[in-house]
């Protein structure tokens, strides 16, 4: 929904002109090639979504709005949504601030350096999320390495509360999702011709002007792609907040799982998922109205 919209050739109705046998054969071939993908999307995505939507309107006695009424009556729902979006926003922003310089250095370096830098970004990615969540727990707990180091250095008197709260959740989520920011950024930066910066400098632009007015705008497609990925993935993150939140973070994903595991309330879980989906859609619709993606991408 953030991709540049290209004019889609309107499918000609049967009335406008008759297809030649070659065109018919081509269309049949395209349809045949798309069938497996359409089938997968239909069975695994569209159908469950419809089923989920239907289920969210089912009360004990048939059709009911009771699951949605809970959003207005139960304050846990609202606070959970607010916390989830707050964490997603902070994680996305932090990933961008940390990921941009990494991707920049990787895109600018030569020889063996790009694979080394990207490798360092990717290696943790191949480790299980569960393992990394526990690793953060060990690092950040009351008597963990970070706290003891800070205490030994005399920087703090009492251990900081680094985990079992929103900070720990944010930290670990950021660590796990950082590659999703770095890789699209790197791909976008690699597409920027080096001669554009050379040209900018030759025309009198100092390093900051060249970066701000040439490099940064041309890397925005990567910024947008990476931010969308990280934001959306954080919204649905489950294991990490569950392990590192210590009950103080109660994200939407956990709300869904509680409804099913504890109360076996599939209708309530479905309604939460539907609302989350709609809110995400609304955010991106709003973003695409506010940010001129097409101009940024240079397609206009």
């Amino acid at each position: 929904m953030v991709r540049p919209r290209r004019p889609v050739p309107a499918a000609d109705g049967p009335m406008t002109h008759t297809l030649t046998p070659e065109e018919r054969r081509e269309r049949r071939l395209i349809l045949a090639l798309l069938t497996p993908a359409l089938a997968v999307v239909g069975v695994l995505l569209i159908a469950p979504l419809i089923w989920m939507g239907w289920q969210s309107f089912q009360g004990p006695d048939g059709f009911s709005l009771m699951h949605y009424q809970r959003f207005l009556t139960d304050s846990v729902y609202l606070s959970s949504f607010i916390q989830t979006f707050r964490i997603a926003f902070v994680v996305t922003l932090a990933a961008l601030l940390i990921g941009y310089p990494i991707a920049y250095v990787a895109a600018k370096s030569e020889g063996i350096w790009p694979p080394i830098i990207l490798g360092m970004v990717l290696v943790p990615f191949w480790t299980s999320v569960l393992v990394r969540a526990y690793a953060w727990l060990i690092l950040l707990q009351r008597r963990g390495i970070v706290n003891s180091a800070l205490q030994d250095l005399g920087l703090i008197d009492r251990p900081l509360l680094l985990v079992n709260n929103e900070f720990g959740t944010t930290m670990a989520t950021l660590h796990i999702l950082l590659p999703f920011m770095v890789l699209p950024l790197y791909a976008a930066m690699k597409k920027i011709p080096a001669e554009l910066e050379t040209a900018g400098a030759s025309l009198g632009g100092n390093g900051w002007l060249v970066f701000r007015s040439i490099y940064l705008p041309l890397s925005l497609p990567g910024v947008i792609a990476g931010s969308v990925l990280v934001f959306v993935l954080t919204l649905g993150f489950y294991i990490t907040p569950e392990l590192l939140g210590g009950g103080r973070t109660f994200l939407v994903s956990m709300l869904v799982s509680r409804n099913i595991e504890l109360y076996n309330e599939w209708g309530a879980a479905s309604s939460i998922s539907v609302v989350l989906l709609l809110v995400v859609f609304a955010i991106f619709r709003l973003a695409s109205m506010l940010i001129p993606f097409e101009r940024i991408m240079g397609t206009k």
Partner: protein
Amino acid sequence: MDASSHPHQVGVTIRNAVKRYGSFNALNDVSLDVAPGEFLSILGPSGSGKTTLLGLLGGFVQPTSGSIHLGATDITHMPPHKRDIGIVFQNYALFPHMTVGQNITFPLRARHMPKADWPARLEAALAMVELSGYADRSIAALSGGQRQRVALARAMIFEPRLILMDEPLSALDKQLRETMQLELKDLHAKLGATIIYVTHDQREALTMSDRIAVMKDGKLVQVDSPRTLHDRPANAFVASFIGEAMLLPVARQDAGILTLSGKALRSAHAIPAGKDLFLTVHSEKLTLAGPSTAPEANLLPGTVSSTVYQGESVRIFVTLDGGHAVSLRLPSNHSGWQIMPERGQAVTLALHPDDTIVVPQAA
């Protein structure tokens, strides 16, 4: 951009420039003086060091040793954005996310010129390259030739002391390239700026330049006017690189006489001493011997091996009696067809002593 006075005219002095990449000498002791207002081309095959030399002038490559002066200013170690040199890049390097106007005014923005002055300057620059009214277009909507002009306007708008052009026409098709060559030449006359033009196209260099610097293996081989370079090449490399020259091995008899396959030929130019000498034969210097041939001309008997019709002319390949192959052209007009030889026919070619140029293998 006033044609009557050129306050920005400035010469370039390159002294003993060396650029080494590891053990590879990209530039090997290059010294070159470019006069204020001159159009100088740097011509050479790929890998000859011309791009390195351009990088040195633009400030993107740091010399291992040597110095570069722009007028009286030493710019050897000056960063690119302070040099005040306009550069037109091979692929134009236009900023794709900016409009034509934003591209062209970028140098004004970089120099913090008052915004009130921009519109007038932009208009003048657009008019100069005949793109008035294009300021709000996007780069993607321009043709190759128009992009070329935008790049040119962008490099000129801040009235740089020196303009560098790196094969700016190589991406255009032949017809447009030839039009642009003449336009660039006109523009140079109008602006009066010093222009250094890098190309590997000898015809382009001959068409546009006041002087041409020929490079090979990181060294300057010869720096001369197009005509001198073409008619009096310094060595076999220059001779083979410029024009349609055939190089025939010859021996020196004395300062004015050489022998080609045992046959003595006269030259109006001093023949260099030494071995490994070559006679430079340009196809346009050869004629079929006839009543109008000058009496002092060297005569070269041979046999026509083939003729190729090429539209405006017919190229005739002749095997000389000594076994060397040469070619000449006859115009495809009435008088040309009158004397057109056939394949297998014995002919005598004439080469005037003024056009009989002997060059050494290397300078």
